């Protein structure tokens, strides 16, 4: 649980963090390259179902009505949404989130979130590798 799976580029960002944040985490190089193709991600978007999360429908309704995204919040949406969300955005989406969060990590709690995110991506890459047309 303390392993942080980072690509070589991400590791540079990690190394730039204050030592107090870096200590205690074991960085493992993320070497797998089984990222989704555009076609695969498009399919995942069409396969996605958030019907168990009425909060999502409400948020999307508000966006369509013109509410500004910065006025909306993910509060109230349970963490169980992560399964469907992560599959939908794929390892590529998770990489974008990981990279962004690495830039702004300031607390140990942020680091714990980052570790989790990197593990989600790692497992997604393994899943992608385990089932392939090739």
């Amino acid at each position: 649980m303390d392993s942080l799976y980072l690509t070589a580029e991400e590791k540079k960002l990690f190394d730039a963090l204050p030592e107090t944040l870096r200590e205690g985490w074991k960085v493992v190089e993320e070497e797998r390259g089984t990222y989704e193709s555009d076609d695969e991600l498009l399919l995942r978007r069409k396969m996605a179902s958030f019907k168990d999360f009425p909060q999502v429908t409400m948020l999307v309704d508000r966006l369509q009505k013109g509410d500004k995204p910065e006025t909306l919040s993910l509060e109230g949406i349970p963490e169980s949404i992560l399964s469907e969300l992560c599959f939908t955005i794929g390892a590529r989406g998770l990489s974008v989130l990981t990279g962004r969060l690495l830039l702004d990590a300031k607390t140990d709690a942020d680091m714990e979130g980052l570790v989790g995110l990197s593990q989600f991506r790692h497992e997604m890459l393994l899943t992608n590798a385990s089932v392939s047309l090739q």
Partner: protein
Amino acid sequence: MINQPKETSAPKEKPVFPVFKDRQEMTDFGQRIGFKKIEEFESALDSVQQRDKLIEALRKSDPKLNGQVDALINHLKINRQEITRKEAWYKKVLKFPGRMVSKTWETIKKHPVAAALVLAALAAAGVAGTYYLAANWEGFFAKLGAQTAVKGAEAIGPATKIAPQIDLAPFLEGAPQAEGFIP
């Protein structure tokens, strides 16, 4: 010297094919076009011997498919792959430590840019006709006015400064609908 004909660069319209959210939907489709069992349908996707039967069944179900059968078969194979991956993913997620899941979600929720990205993904999944975003995370990030993290960390300001620039409107309009075909 033989002059090669130049290829025209006119964009081809991508055909709209059915998308099955899970194995049951794919099974139902297989049955509708004449395959009694999902195994039969899935093996026809892979088998050279049964390919003619599959092509015939697909053509029969939609005579307008002319010239698109190969693309449809390829699409169905990717759809099946993604269904299988999703099944494997859900089994795996069940074993994730609860604390890790909680901390990950808490971190995403409180980060303005990460939250906006997630919001965009949810909107793309919830609104028909916005599907290009799902494959364009890197581009979306660039449109937020920031460079991708790994390319230019120093160029990105604090998240709180970036958040007010976020406008999802461009991602909620205009792309073609992806429904149809299912017989």
